[in-house]
């Protein structure tokens, strides 16, 4: 059964990585296009991330088919139960998905034609694609959250309204933006790295790097809060989950994300630090910040202390950004065009993706030994019953 979980998990994570990036970029594209009305570079950013979305998005859908087929073959009970009990929301989601595709593809492939007619309507088209994909993701989040915190309701729609649906949806929304931001910055870092002898596009890629970093760090800060709300909600409804995750080998699943979170915070800080500002680079203050981040990792298995430290880190990060951001946004920042910043941005992009994946893994582990809490057990899907293995 562990084998089955591994394979379904592996392809789910591959799908989620691309899908979440796609969702994040889809939300950001019309916003960037709107900003492009006054700063034309942002129109290029919008086009670039839409192109990136299309490629990752279709691949993620194909991976979804693969994941669904693995799920059908290896977890037939859970699969049929979920499809049966959520059939109306799923059919609605499918219809939304189709309309979303009909908005997204013309948004990219008829970019110039639409913009020559009306930029506003083109943005509306992109915005509609973003809203619809959030509806689709929201319904899937409802099913995912139900598997951990089910409610005894009669209809599929009512089952979506389980205690952790909204917190999960909010947490994922900002998670998508975190990885979209950091991956955007990583891409810019990579382009600056490979074209460091050519200065032609440096201005554009520096803008992309700054935009990506800004999106990443701001949403990461929100993530700390939304993550707390989500974890608190789970703890309220299912008090058995947290002790289970903190015992034995599962502890690493709790510590791991905080190591990655610390890496993202420290890496971001180092990149922001390379911008010259009049005040704020105090060694005492920065030493304290590093200490707090280390404590965040060390105290990860102790929820009370971890939350306290998280709050302090959040305040410190916000305070630091409050005086770095004005210089970051308004001024030219040639000091960012160094191999150190390029490399750091690439590492942070990878770290954000891994962080997203570890979060997904925790939720799956938290359900064990059930596939749907209190309804279907892993054991019921055992291989000796399943002809696929013979």
């Amino acid at each position, binding site marked *: 059964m562990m084998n089955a979980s591994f394979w379904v998990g592996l392809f789910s994570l591959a799908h989620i990585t691309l899908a979440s990036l796609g969702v994040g970029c889809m939300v950001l594209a019309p916003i960037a296009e709107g900003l492009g009305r006054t700063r034309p570079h942002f129109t290029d950013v919008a086009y670039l991330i839409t192109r990136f979305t299309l490629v990752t998005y279709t*691949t993620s*859908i194909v991976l979804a*088919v693969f994941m669904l087929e693995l799920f059908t*073959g290896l977890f037939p*009970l859970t699969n*049929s139960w979920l*499809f049966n009990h959520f059939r109306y929301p799923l059919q609605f989601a499918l219809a939304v998905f189709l309309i979303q*595709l009909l908005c997204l593809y013309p948004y990219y492939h008829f970019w110039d034609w639409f913009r020559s007619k009306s930029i506003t309507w083109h943005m509306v088209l992109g915005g509609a694609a973003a809203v619809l994909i959030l509806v689709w993701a929201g319904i899937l989040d409802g099913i995912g959250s139900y598997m951990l915190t089910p409610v005894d309701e009669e209809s599929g729609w009512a089952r979506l309204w389980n205690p952790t649906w909204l917190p999960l949806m909010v947490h994922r929304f900002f998670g998508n933006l975190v990885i979209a931001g950091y991956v955007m910055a990583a891409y810019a870092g990579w382009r600056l790295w490979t074209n460091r002898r050519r200065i032609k596009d440096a201005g554009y890629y520096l803008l992309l790097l700054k935009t990506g970093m800004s999106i990443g760090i701001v949403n990461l800060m929100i993530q700390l809060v939304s993550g707390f709300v989500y974890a608190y909600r789970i703890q309220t409804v299912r008090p058995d989950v947290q002790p289970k995750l903190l015992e034995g080998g599962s502890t690493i699943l709790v510590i791991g994300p905080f190591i990655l979170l610390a890496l993202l915070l420290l890496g971001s800080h180092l990149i922001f630090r390379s911008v010259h500002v009049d005040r704020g680079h105090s060694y005492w203050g920065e030493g304290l910040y590093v200490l707090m981040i280390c404590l965040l990792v060390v105290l990860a298995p102790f929820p009370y202390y971890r939350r306290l430290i998280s709050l302090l880190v959040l305040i410190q990060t916000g305070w630091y950004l409050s005086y770095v951001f004005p210089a970051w946004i308004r001024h030219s920042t040639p000091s960012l065009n160094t191999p150190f910043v390029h490399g750091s941005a690439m590492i942070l992009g990878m770290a954000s993706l891994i962080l997203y994946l570890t979060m997904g893994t925790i939720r799956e582990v938290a359900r064990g030994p059930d596939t749907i809490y209190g309804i279907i057990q892993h054991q019921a899907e055992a291989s000796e019953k399943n*002809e*696929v293995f013979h």
Partner: protein
Amino acid sequence: MTLEPLGIPLSVGRLAIAASALLHSLFATFIVGSSLIGAITATFSHVTRKEWLGRLARLIAFALVLSTATISFFGVGLVFFLNIYWPQFWHRIFQVMFWPFLGEAALFLGEAIFAYAWYYLWEWGRHGWRQRVHLAFIWLAAGCAGVAMFMIDITASYMLTPDPVYSAWENILNPTMIHLDLHRWFGNLTWAGFGIAGICALSYLKAPTETDRNFFQKGGAYGFVLGYGALLIMPVVGYQYLLHLRYGQPQAFYTVMLGERSWLFAFVGLLYGLLVFMGSLYASQMIRSQPNPPVSFSGFFPFSLAIIVLATITLAMPYHLQHVPFLNQLIDQEINPLGKMQPYKYFALSGLVIFGFGNWLYSLQAFGQMPPHTGYSHTPRTGRGMAATLISLAGLTMIILLSMGWVRESARAVNGYLIYEVMRLEDEKSTYQSSSSGKGSSNEIRFNPFER
């Protein structure tokens, strides 16, 4: 485990599955055919350095990428509908065909990755060693698509001729597997060829410049030559397929050829005849647009057209009139002796293939003599007429493709099977309503997905 009964008629589920499966197959077949045509076109472009071939390859790449995106949605939709409406069938077939299904999905992933790399890295692959890597992308995409189709053909043919029912290799190499796959290869090439020709024809009608019109004319002729060539091979492969169906599953064969759904086969015959007829018309339009058309054509074409019309009528005639919907209420006659397969329809098919082939050879010669930078010399009216013929060919191919899929599904469904001799439609009924205890749709139904 228990499930909630759906509480809707079985026909709703059948309709949902049929619609999603047919839409899915329409795009899947186009992808297989267009990726191969794209690979051939890109290779010709790479070798000959002809500009119009490069432009056409890019057009095909765009169509391929859009089709891949569309089919990925329809794929998800089909899997959703199968899980919702036919869970017992879906889990039963999945228990038997786990690896082919997985292989198909993995290869489709490969096709998507390589097709996307081909289209989106077009500028990247323009110079030096990158040209060959770029060319490799579309061949890899075509390879993945072809093998993915092979995988799904294993399942599709097994559902009709599972012989024996549970034995891995025999399941894969069931009596109709190879022939179905071969039949689909040519079918896909026909559909993709005419589909590309149809896209070129539509673009021709909207083209703003003379250069664009010349290009789309040439692209349309190119797609036509490939599609029409593949169309003429279809009866030969189709005959082999039906022959093996006759030996593998006589009841299904009888249903389609002489039984309840024989009218559907006659309808497919009508569509095939119309395709050959329209193709011949396009060939004549191509040839007459040449500055010096071959003299022999003026004698051959009217004769060939007469034979093709006669053959189409013969092929479309049903043998058992009582099976034709509505007609059985109008006339008492049960048998139409002219609708017999042996010898009339064999003669009709031979006539269509031989005279269609003759017209195809003329069109091939006309295509070969097209000037490199211009299209045909004709009036705008003739150009629009040629475009309309190509669009009709693409439309007819779509209809015949869907009808053929319907024929194969009918061969099982009319006899009450979802998987021949393994699972009946009856077995899925419990998904729709709880047992006849009369307690309504709120009752739960027993469901065991491990059952064989």
